[in-house]
């Protein structure tokens, strides 16, 4: 009896050890699953580059789209995709949506890396070319102005508004200190003024930051990739009702290629977009969603490519 007790204890210890090892292994697997998606290797990229250099744009696009389908998000990959689509758009093998796809890819690269000047410049050039092509046609689409909140946000960016809110909060705090702690009249007066100014700035910055956060969580950017995307009602019928003060020009029943839109809802084969101050629907196949640059409400957290160095 007394000889069996140590054996039983050893057995229990083994069970505990294996259980612990299993838990650790499971945790490791979970962490592995949560890890960033692997990026294409230099060999993969060299293969794609070789395809581009010999003019096999479709092969390069197919490979890059495959990485995109796998959920790999990286600004340079998006940029490369834009290069491939742009190359095909200017080759004999061009297809109808190539320029729109190129705009979507460069727009994605710019959203992922806002400081990418090369992407910004080429994006501007492509849009200028699309505009020039539209000017030659009678039935050109119309680009709606963004709504006021989005325009204000895009003016300086969400983080700048957030920083302004934080700064306002700091000024408000210091003003309160001066106002409450000082016994000198001038210091108390200055503190009071600073507190009021800080309160206004904090309220404005925090409100705009919240609006930006809300818009980011409830909408996702996309680019029109067809020559003209027809505006539709919620029932799928073509409409021209979005014409209004917020649109430029007269005709407002189509959205031209390369336009950045913001999707706020999806239903069946339609997507709802912000259109001026209102909403409209587009065929989901006419737009390409841009990979989210951060946490969003619609697309979840982006799987950033893990770059092997």
């Amino acid at each position, binding site marked *: 009896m007394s000889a069996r007790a140590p054996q039983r204890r050893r057995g229990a210890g083994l069970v505990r050890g294996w259980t612990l090892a299993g838990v650790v292994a499971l945790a490791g697997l979970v962490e592995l699953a949560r890890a960033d998606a692997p990026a*294409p290797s*230099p060999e993969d*990229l*060299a293969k794609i580059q070789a395809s581009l250099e010999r*003019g*096999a*744009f*479709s*092969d390069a696009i*197919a490979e890059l*789209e*495959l990485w995109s*389908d796998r959920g790999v*998000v*990286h600004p*340079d*990959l998006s940029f*490369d995709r834009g*290069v491939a689509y*742009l*190359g095909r*758009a200017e*080759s*004999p*093998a061009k297809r109808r949506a190539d320029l729109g796809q190129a705009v979507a890819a460069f727009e994605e690269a710019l959203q992922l*890396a806002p400081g990418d000047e090369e992407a910004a*410049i*080429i994006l501007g*050039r*492509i849009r200028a070319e699309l505009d020039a092509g539209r000017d030659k046609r009678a039935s050109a689409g119309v680009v709606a102005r963004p709504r006021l909140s989005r325009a204000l946000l895009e003016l300086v960016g*969400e*983080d700048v508004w*957030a920083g302004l809110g*934080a700064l306002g*909060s*700091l000024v*408000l*705090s210091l003003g*309160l*200190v001066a106002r409450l*702690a000082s016994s000198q009249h001038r210091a108390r007066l200055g503190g009071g003024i600073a507190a009021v100014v*800080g*309160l206004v700035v*904090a309220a404005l910055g*925090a409100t705009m*930051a919240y609006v*930006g*956060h809300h818009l*980011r969580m409830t909408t996702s950017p996309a680019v029109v990739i067809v020559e003209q995307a027809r505006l539709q009602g919620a029932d*799928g*019928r073509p409409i021209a009702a979005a014409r209004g003060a917020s649109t430029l020009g007269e005709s407002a029943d189509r959205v031209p290629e390369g336009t950045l839109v913001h999707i706020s809802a999806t239903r069946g*084969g339609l997507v709802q977009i912000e259109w001026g101050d209102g909403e409209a629907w587009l*065929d989901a196949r006419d737009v390409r969603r841009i990979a989210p640059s*951060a946490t969003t409400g619609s697309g979840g*957290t*982006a799987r*950033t*490519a893990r*770059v092997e*160095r």
Partner: protein
Amino acid sequence: MKPGCVCRSERRRLARSAPVARGAKALRLASVLWLAALVALWPRAGRADVELSLSLGAREVAVGESVQVRLDAMSADDESPSDPELVVPSGFEVRGPSVGTRQQVSISGFSMVTQSGITATWLLTATRPGLFTIGPATVLWKGQRRQAETVQLSVLPPGQQPRVRSRSRRPALDPFDAFDPFGRGSGFDDLFDRLRGGSRFEQLPAAPRDLVPERAPDTLAFLDAHIDTRRAVVGQQVTLSIYAHGSQGLFQEAPGAREPTHPDFLAHRLVEDGSRQPVYQYSRGGERWIAVKVREIALFPLRAGRLEIGPLEFGFLGRRYGARSGDGLRRSTRPIFVDVSEPPKEGRPAGYTGEVGDFELRATVEPRTIPAGGSIAVSARVKGRGRLPGALIVPEQAGTEWLEPTVRDDVSVENSVVGGTRSFSYLVRMTQPGTIDLGALRLPLFDPATGRYRVASFALGNATVEAPATAAGAGDPAAPEDGPRLSELVRFRAALAPHEPARFWTDRAPYWWWLGLAPGTVLAAFGLLRLGARVRRGLAARADSQATHAARALGDARQALAAGTPAAVASASERALYSGIEWSTGVKARAVLRADLARELSGAGLPDELAARVVAALEACSALRFGHADPARARAVVDDVDAIVKQLVRRAPRARPRAAEEARA
């Protein structure tokens, strides 16, 4: 002048006008001959143009259904029309065109006219409802584009079916209806009456076991719907088969059947009605039943999810079914659901665009040797099972230009499986001289039978492109005319720079805490400081208050009581009383005559009874100070004073009115 008589002068006038009349007659004759010649030649001259005709397979379809659009372009000229194009509004999936050549000989006028041309066919699949204008369709003829008239197509929403079906217009009694398996036409009821009791019923083939349901949901007639699989991937064929079962003999389909809705599927009808289907017989519970397949539809899911196939509503026509005309005995199937998923992401080849099935790819290249700037013809043929693929991946490379292919279809159905052949005819323009490896045509596809991806490919081999004789000055036709192209402004990034995903301040909770916490902390800190100061002031005031003095004096009195010094007890008790009075009423009682004290205290708000007790206690203190030193009496005084002081102190402190103080002063 008499009537009927021609006088001389008249004759002379007529003689003068005769040559004029002959000239007019000759003119008329010449005109007639010219017109005859014009008429004889007119048809040829008229047909020197190209004749275009655009037609639809159906004027009305439902969403998800396909309709064939056909363009006939005929020309009497040697040059045949080519390059057909069709303008299709959004809301359709377009397949094609499939182009075939035609020759037509006709006698028109006095001449035989030979026309040649093309027939281009597109397959349009409606994706949303509405009334659409299809076209115009155009062809290229003698360097110009010629245009055909447009046609209207009505697309009904999912759930509605086109009103016009050929079988719906069919009379109830169709002499060619194969529901009468013995070809007796309108006498089928009587015939079946004979069959029921006779032996000819037995001549019908026995129903396969899987066709006989486990139980009959109805004693007269019912419909039984099957699908071959409940789980499928997007693009995989799901076959819906519907059998009509009847126990009262032969029946026909009543007009106005409501077809199954399938908004999330592309449909290919394999069996439109039961008229050409075998009729089976089986027995159940002593009843003789017949069963016939009335519908079979190959459905191709368009999206992932739990997709619904709507019911079929069908009318049984027959005397024993209670209706020989009209809607018949109505029966319907139940909705069927199919779980559809996307093909797996694992192993997905590059360039996969959703083709599902099992196909083989073959191709021919002609010619193999061409001059620079010339074209070779690549004819590829895809054959197999599944929905015919829409496009092949062509091997692009610099110096080759693949034009849009001409597509020709030959859809076939084998054992209820849709398949067939699709031919892609490419023209490839070769601009760079040399021996060029054309690469391989590819078709990535997912085979649901094996659950794996496969890439069907065919290597095209080499082509020799001869340098042009006048090479000097002949540049690349694809070279830009002016300025760099946009694609030359950007370079492929062959290495990925380290990248951190953007993180916004507002995604972090501390940011929102900071906004409120900083000023809130300042306000809270100063509030606490002020509160502390106020508490300290209150405590100090309380330490110096008359109530505290009264309590201390009472303590002194008890100490004096313990020490046995009645005078000290009396003195301390008086102090306690005066302090208590001042705390409670603000009246400095030492300065008030004892006789006026009760009235003064009442005037200050003290109850009369308590004022009287105060005065009595003061009198007792005086008596104790100057009278006999009785400890029991001293204790009684102290206890009495203690109780009075407690009552006084319990009252809210009251400051003496300044006016009263001044008046007193």
